[in-house]
Structures are given as C-alpha cells and as structure tokens.
C-alpha cells in the first residue's frame, strides 16, 4: 500500500479517510511536551471532520480568551501546537489552563459554517489538464467541472505554503494521479487535483498537480491587511465563471475593490 501523504512531508498524492465515525473525542485528548516553549494537544490519531471542528473551536476559544503568553498556534488535522513564552507562563500552569479549556463543553458543530466562494475559470489555457482528469474519470470535462464545483470542501488545515489549504472531501470519481513530470512553475491561483486532494496554489510554486482551472482571487496577498482570507475549519466552494467574469473579477482584485463572497450557513 502506498503510504498516505501525511506520513511523509509530501504534500499531495495521498487520500482522505471518509467520514470516520468518531467516538468520544475528549477521551483521546492528550497534552504532550514539545520543548520548553510549545505543547502539543493531540486529539486522537485520525482525520475526521468532528475532530477538526473541535480543534477549530479550541483555536477560536484561545483567541477569545487570550491566554497571556500564548504566541502562536498551529492547528493540524488532529492536533494543535500551542507556542507560548515561558517568561510569561510556565509549563505546569499552561498545561492546566489548556486542560480546563478542553473541559469546556464546546457546542461542536452547532456553529455556522463559513463558506468562501472561489470563482474558477475551468479548462482551456487556464486548466491545461482538465482533459486528463476527464479522460481518467471517463467522463466529459463539463461533468468533471460540475462534480468539482458542486460541493463544499472543509479546510482541515493550512500548511506547506502560506495559505495552502488541505481540503477534504474530493469526490472519488475525479481523483486523478499527479503528473509524471511535475511542472517547474505553477502560477498562483491555479486550481488542481493531486491524487485524492484538490486545492489552490497560493503562490507560484513547482508542483505535480493536474491543473483544471484558475481563480482570479488572491487567496494569499502579503500586501493586504488580512494576507490570508481563510482559516482551518472554514469551507471552500468553487464557482465556475466564464472568461468575461474572470476578467471582471481580476480587474477588481487588481484595484483592491474585490470582496470575497462569504456565506454563513448552518
């Protein structure tokens, strides 16, 4: 069996487990040391939307409660690394604070889902591999686009590149192996499929994903007040647009007037 991608530092080519039934999440939580300035909260060892929602809720709580000394957090699939300054708060106290925070009964899953619309111009020169994907799936390009844009993808975590989202939930029918020869440069905004994953390239980067389209929206812009729009726990919805719409949005993005469409749904 090919190892899933999270076993190595490869960022694509793996698969997501589908909706693992999670038991009592609290039962599996452990707090581990990660040096003198970080601790790792482990929420079991599986990838599931429930665990992910739990982690997103804790991150939100951490931001709201603003524990003094917490410098940065890194939410991942099923863990949360909390970096803190031992000058301000020591290990034992930090651990206790986290424990009590974890005991708080968070209404997991009752909050609204925040969905970001990402307009995509599929195919043609914008998505040179859409034909490959269709051929591999044994369907038309239109069907691939329809499948790809007909569901919301949970952002499990961000990593690898600034703003790069690990999205869950790509329809099995359009899973496509990566290119045999990776491209040396993939343009920022490219939308593609790599194995069981789909995603957006936040900046120019080499890569082996099958490119199916392009978004004019900058998911990452260091010049913007909020450089990265999304966070773990949010959802992404791909919306097909034609070239005229693409150009119109692109112009808005350029002059800074574009506002990303965000839905709040239960």
């Amino acid at each position: 069996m090919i190892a899933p991608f999270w076993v190595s530092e490869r960022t694509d080519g793996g698969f997501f487990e589908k909706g693992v039934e999670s038991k009592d999440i609290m039962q599996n939580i452990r707090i581990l040391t990660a040096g003198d300035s970080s601790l790792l909260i482990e929420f079991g060892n599986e990838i599931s939307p429930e665990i992910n929602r739990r982690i997103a809720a804790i991150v939100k709580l951490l931001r709201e409660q603003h524990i003094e000394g917490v410098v940065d957090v890194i939410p991942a699939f099923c863990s949360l690394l909390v970096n803190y300054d031992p000058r301000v708060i020591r290990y034992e106290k930090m651990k206790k604070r986290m424990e009590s925070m974890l005991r708080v009964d968070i209404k997991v899953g009752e909050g609204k889902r925040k969905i970001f619309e990402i307009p995509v111009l599929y195919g043609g020169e914008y998505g040179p591999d859409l034909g490959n994907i269709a051929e591999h799936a044994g369907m038309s390009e239109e069907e691939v686009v329809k499948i790809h844009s007909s569901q919301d993808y949970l952002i499990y975590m961000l990593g690898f590149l600034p703003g790069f989202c690990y999205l869950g939930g790509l329809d099995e029918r359009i899973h496509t192996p990566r290119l045999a020869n990776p491209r040396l440069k993939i343009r920022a905004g490219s939308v593609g499929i790599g194995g069981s994953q789909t995603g957006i390239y936040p900046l120019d980067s080499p890569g082996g994903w099958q490119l199916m389209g392009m978004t004019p929206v900058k998911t990452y812009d260091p010049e913007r007040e909020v450089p990265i729009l999304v966070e773990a726990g949010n959802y992404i919805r791909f919306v097909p647009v034609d070239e005229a719409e693409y150009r119109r949005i692109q112009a808005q993005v350029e002059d800074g007037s574009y506002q990303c469409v965000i839905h709040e749904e239960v």
Partner: protein
Amino acid sequence: MGIRILKAGMMTTVQDLGRTGYQSQGFSVAGVMDVRSFKIANLLLDNPENEAVLEFALIGPTLEFTAGTLIAITGGDFQPTINGEPAPMYTAIDIHKGDVLKFGSARTGSRGYIAFSSYLKVPVVMGSRCTNMKSSIGGFKGRKLQDGDYIGFRIKRRYLPFFLSRTLELDEFNQDHVTLRVVLGPQDERFSKQGIETFLNSEYTVTSDFDRMGCRLEGPFIARKEASDMISDGIAFGSIQVPSHGKPIILLSDRQTTGGYPKIATVASVDIPWLVQRKTDHKVRFKAISVEDAQKLYLKELEELNQMRKKIHQPCKEVLECRQVSRRIRRLFP
C-alpha cells in the same frame, strides 16, 4: 544614509525574532537562527529587543556606510575589519561615513550578526522585518542580499551613554563537541526504548545539509517501534524529527509549519544557538532534561542578558579613574 552591500557573502539576510502569529495559515516564522547573539547585538546598542539585524553565514558580507552610526557585531568570528583594521566584536563600534566593514569566512562559529543603532529601513510585513525567502516577503525585497544592494537607515546617528563601557565577553564557538539539552517528545513514545537510548548515548555529526531550514545529522540509527502512520502536526523551533532512515533532522528558523515525521525531542531554547553555530563535521550529543529545567535555563539566560544590560550601563572604570586623577591635578593648580 545607510549601507551599500559591496559583497553580499554567502547568505546574508535581514532578520529579527520572526513573523509569529501566522503559522496557523502556513507561514514559516523565519527569524534569526542564533537568538542569543541577536539579542546581545541589539542590547549593546540599547536597541529594542526585536530590532532587525543582518544575519550572515559561512562567508560574511562587505558593507560600505554612507552615514555615520554605531554598530555591534556578535556571533561567530568572521574576522571583521573596518577599513582594513581588525574590528572588535561584542562591542559598540563608532562608524564614520565611508567606512568599509568587511567580513571573511567563519574562523569559529558559522553565523554572524550586525546590529545598527540607526535601524535598517525595511518595511514591516505582517508584524516583522524578517526575511522569509520561501514566500519572498519581508526583509530586503523578500530575498537574501546581493552585491550592490542598498539599505537605508530609519534614523540618524543617535547618542549612546556610557559608550566606553559597551563591551561584553565574547561567546566562543570553537568547541568541536557540544551537548545539546533536549526535552523528549512529543512523539518519543513512537521510538523503541533502544532507539531512545541510541539517541541519548551516541555522537552525531553535523552534515553539510545544514541551512536555515534545518540541520541533518549523521550517526547511529534510531529505531522506532513498529511502523505506525503519523498524521502531520505542528513543528516547534528546534524539533528533532526522525524519518524512517533513522537519522535526526533538527528543524530551525525556516522550517515548515507542519510535518509528518515523528519528533523524538526538542532542543532546549538556550542550546539552539550552540547548535546553529556548528559547522559540517562537528559533533553533537543529546542529553534529556525536564521541561521545567529547560524553562529554568531559559529564564536564567534572560537574567544573564539583564546583567549584561546593567554592566554596559555603568561608567567605564578606567574613565572614572581618569576623571579622579584629573580632578586631583586640577586641585594642585588652582
């Protein structure tokens, strides 16, 4: 008013303590590798603790100053000279317009730092002036310095009291062997008992695969328990990951935010400077300590830095004596 980079050296970048707060969005922290040398350099000039400096590695840069200022050089010994004359390290140095500061290759240590009392004029991007080369942001145009670059100063030359007192003892990086204290975890239990023993009782060699992202070590194989899949999690500064080849890799300033290899331990913050100042073929060993002890060491170092700050804020003894003598002489000739 600033510095012109006549020769950029191997890897010279603008750095501070890093861009924190964005790791949840995939942003590497970057920032200085040797936090101690960085802090001492700024401290010598009464700079804010997180003021941006130049960090360089292996072969240092050559700079020309287009305005007078004060600087401090710390870290490894890159044999600095000013206009051809040896320049002191761990000392506040008076710089005049037109002076040329030149570094050679590292005699001891492998990373050097220059702090400027006129502050480097580079924009603050997402709360930091540090260079993140992978994302091409921060520092000077998001990249390492090149020959001919020019970086301005933010303020004019400023007065520093007790100028003659501003000298501290040098940190020596000439040891061939260092022992790095580590806190075991977070995934130490994925390693066999024997694997942990190997890790703690063997000597590892620094390979040439050593940059701002991490340091790859060569040495005895560290055995894991039966293979079990690990799901990527967040990485701390100084995390020691052990991929299936069984050799440790210590993750440093430009590390990715997350990774999928088990991490056997994390280097104590106070010992990371002694690691990053190693060179290829140097030896390191690991010693496990508790997280409480690692934090005590961290606080002790902060206290040591405080003492340094006090020391350079006292009148220089020689000057005092000199004044007393002159006062007595003056009394002799009313």
